């Protein structure tokens, strides 16, 4: 579906002088810095995949999305989406994709939702019958019924986002780009959106590329994630595997009947020590959880314990940090 090969994007950023004289100098002087926003990104996504595309702010995410959607021309490398070159075949390419920007609406602000949909039907040249079927389906799944006659400006954020998703799907695209679709939503609204996206992906086989800062979106929805930082891919693989590969540090909280043991096996660190309590951190590759618990059980009698996998946020934050000098 998507083939990206050594993708590059370099921006020329003009150097700005400050102050009054500086602003005059800016008018005549053309100093530039070259900034490499995307630096040799390669990946491929098969039809039907649901991929999380994440990275810190300024990592080159949105630049990559803009190139994938045909808004920006790459300065190097190649992109094929469904066999098309996005920028060159803009009209055909944009007809086969759906795009949602969480921060910006694609609906007509002062008009009832249904009017935006009718307009989009004409923009995308969707035949009347297909449109009716698709709208009926989306109306049911996203519970749009009571919203269709309300002007967009009067919708709540969660309601609006449901309407945005439907708007992006009216022409039944095979591929969707979602940029922060859950930003600013409450728990219930978030869950509704996630459930819909999961259905859309599993039942209709829509390929989805999801950009988000909310990693619980990714954990809930995406079997695979691509992590990008400073213009490069730093991780591309299963979301589960990232725990095994990078998140090898686990946490064990143990409460003892009596005093906690003093000595500990090799490779176990103490995060917190109370009279009858230990909070331990240990690495999966050094010692197994069962072995550690067994060892502790021999030294003292255990009253209660809990084992925590590291939250994915921490693993990802760790990965971001690794790239820094």
């Amino acid at each position, binding site marked *: 579906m998507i083939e990206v090969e050594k993708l590059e*994007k370099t*921006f*020329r950023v003009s150097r700005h002088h400050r102050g009054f004289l500086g602003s005059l100098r800016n008018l005549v002087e053309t100093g530039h810095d070259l900034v490499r926003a995307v630096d040799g990104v390669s990946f491929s996504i098969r039809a039907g995949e649901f991929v999380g595309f994440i990275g810190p702010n300024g990592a080159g995410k949105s*630049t990559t999305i*803009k190139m994938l*959607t*045909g*808004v*920006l*021309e790459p*300065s190097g490398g190649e992109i094929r989406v469904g066999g098309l070159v996005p*920028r060159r075949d*803009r*009209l*055909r*390419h*944009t*007809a086969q994709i759906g*795009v949602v*920007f969480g921060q*910006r609406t*694609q609906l*007509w*602000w*002062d*008009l009832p939702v249904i*009017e*935006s949909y009718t*307009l989009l039907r*004409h*923009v*995308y*040249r969707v035949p009347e019958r297909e449109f009716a079927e698709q709208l009926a389906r989306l109306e049911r799944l996203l519970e749009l019924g009571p919203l269709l006659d309300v*002007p967009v400006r009067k919708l709540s954020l969660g309601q609006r986002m449901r309407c945005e998703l439907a708007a992006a799907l009216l022409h039944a695209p095979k591929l969707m780009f979602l940029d922060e679709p859950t930003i600013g939503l409450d728990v219930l609204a978030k869950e509704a959106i996630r459930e819909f996206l999961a259905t859309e992906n599993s039942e209709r086989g829509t390929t989805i590329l999801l950009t988000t800062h909310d990693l619980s979106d990714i954990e809930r929805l995406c079997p695979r994630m691509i992590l990008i930082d400073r213009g490069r891919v730093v991780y591309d693989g299963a979301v589960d595997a990232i725990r095994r590969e990078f998140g090898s540090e686990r946490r064990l909280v143990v409460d003892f009947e009596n005093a906690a043991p003093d000595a500990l096996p090799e490779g176990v660190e103490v995060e917190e020590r109370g009279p009858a309590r230990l909070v331990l951190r240990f690495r999966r590759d050094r010692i197994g959880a069962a072995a550690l618990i067994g060892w502790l059980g021999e030294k003292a009698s255990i009253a209660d314990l809990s084992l925590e996998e590291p939250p994915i946020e921490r693993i990802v934050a760790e990965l971001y940090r690794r790239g820094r000098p």
Partner: protein
Amino acid sequence: MLADALSLWARLAGAQIRSQMQYRASFAIQSAVMFGVMVSDLAPVWILSRFFGSLDGWSFAELALLYGMVETSWASVETVLRGFENFSVYLIQGDLDRILLRPRSVILQVATRDFDARKLSRIAQGLLVLAIACFALGLDARALGWVALGVAGGTLCFAGIVMAGAALQFWTLGQAQELQNVLTYGGAAAMTYPVSIYAKWFRRVLTYGVPLAFVNYFPALAALDRTEAAGVPGFVPWLSPLVCAAVLALGMAAFARGLRRYESTGS
């Protein structure tokens, strides 16, 4: 293909009209005010012509003819291509990206983006002034033909200018909105008067630089049989449609160029 584009234009424009109708009272007042603009535009011309008799040999009715021609063509462009006037905003706020994400012509989408139905009343006012002026001057069919040719050419010319102005925003990062306004509103204001009254360099700018003289001045000279008296070769008014079409072509080319620049720089 063209019918398809026109129907989409009408639909998108219609959506804007319905949006504006949400604030009905304000809409009505503003339409009335737009019509009143005519009074404030023409009042100085009337006051001065009344006081001084004529302007370089042009009577008030003749000046009104010039105004009617330029106003009708500029108002038509403001109606049809309204979005190009606000283009700097789309560039700064990122609306252009959304436009590029839709499988339709960028020009078509920009054109209708801020369609303003109130501008229709400005076309009406331009036509009204034009009709009264033509009647007062007793123009015959041949002269009316020249007037129509001027208005049609003027529409192309202003379309080219407003597109070129929008193209300018690509290079100035949307900070040249006022310069765009000088070319359009300022140009229209300058053309309310015969080009002959201006200093030589200003005349040159209006003939060869931003060739607004071809919008109303030369066609009006032909309509009034004044070419010879004004020292303008007889073939010049015939060039009007050509020159105006060339301005449109240049404007579109500049816009396309700017768009390519945007796509390659993202800013």
